[in-house]
């Protein structure tokens, strides 16, 4: 939540509008966060599933451009998403607007603190993290090949 609060607005990043924090009366360690964000009715995973034979090139171009804009915005502010996967890429099928969501694993990268390589969804983790890299930059967590392949082929899996 802190990252979403601090991040300047971008049309390709889901925007946090309001939030509330409620502590449980009997246990101060437990609390419930409620975040109010933009609602987009679909995500890239659903869009891929709807196009079993692959997405049309025009859609790939539209989505890829917005995806890269969102990632560029994060990189400008030293934020690495670390859980980038089709399910966390929200899409409005009516406007084809794309926004990155779910910043639960995101982190502001600094040079003085090491990072943990086992953060985020394993299947979409960047290759350098599979090698155990603890020093990485905003390019980490961009398994762009997997995402691009998913979009082009219409498959979640590429096997070889």
């Amino acid at each position: 939540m802190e990252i979403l609060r601090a991040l300047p607005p971008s049309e390709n990043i889901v925007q946090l509008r309001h939030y509330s924090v409620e502590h449980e009366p009997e246990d101060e360690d437990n609390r419930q966060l409620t975040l109010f964000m933009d609602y987009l009715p679909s995500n890239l995973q659903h869009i891929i599933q709807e196009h079993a034979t692959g997405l049309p090139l025009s859609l790939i171009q539209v989505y890829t451009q917005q995806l890269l804009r969102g990632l560029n915005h994060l990189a400008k502010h030293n934020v690495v998403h670390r859980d980038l996967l089709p399910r966390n890429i929200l899409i409005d099928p009516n406007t084809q607007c794309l926004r990155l969501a779910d910043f639960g694993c995101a982190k502001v990268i600094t040079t003085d603190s090491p990072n943990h390589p086992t953060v985020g969804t394993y299947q979409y983790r960047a290759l350098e993290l599979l090698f155990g890299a603890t020093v990485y930059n905003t390019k980490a967590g961009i398994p762009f090949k997997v995402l691009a392949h998913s979009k082009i082929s219409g498959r979640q899996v590429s096997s070889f």
Partner: protein
Amino acid sequence: MIGIDSILAIVIRSDLIDVIPQQFPLLLRAVCLITACRRTNDQTMDSSANEFETSPESTAAMSEMTVVDTTSGDEVQITLRDEQPVAKGGWSTVSKASLSNGDVVAVKRIRESSHYKVLLAVSGD
């Protein structure tokens, strides 16, 4: 058999050749890279394991909440109506709801416990 996508993966991530220990011969480092590419792709097979379920349940009741406006930092009162669960994950649930001004928003509820904080600490955040 190595397909075109595998070659694409290796070409795109050829920068990673430097991540693999330098003392390895170039050929061995290339094999490591191919193995990692294969591993990544194979692991994507169970990507639906954490797939969210949608639910037709809808809560017609309105609920009022005091929340913080992110832009101004002020506490404001909002009214939620027609709240409908759309997704559920390990730590959170997401609903779709309408505000009194007609805007449709996603409401994400995250329950933070001591265990969750330990995970965050381990992850270095």
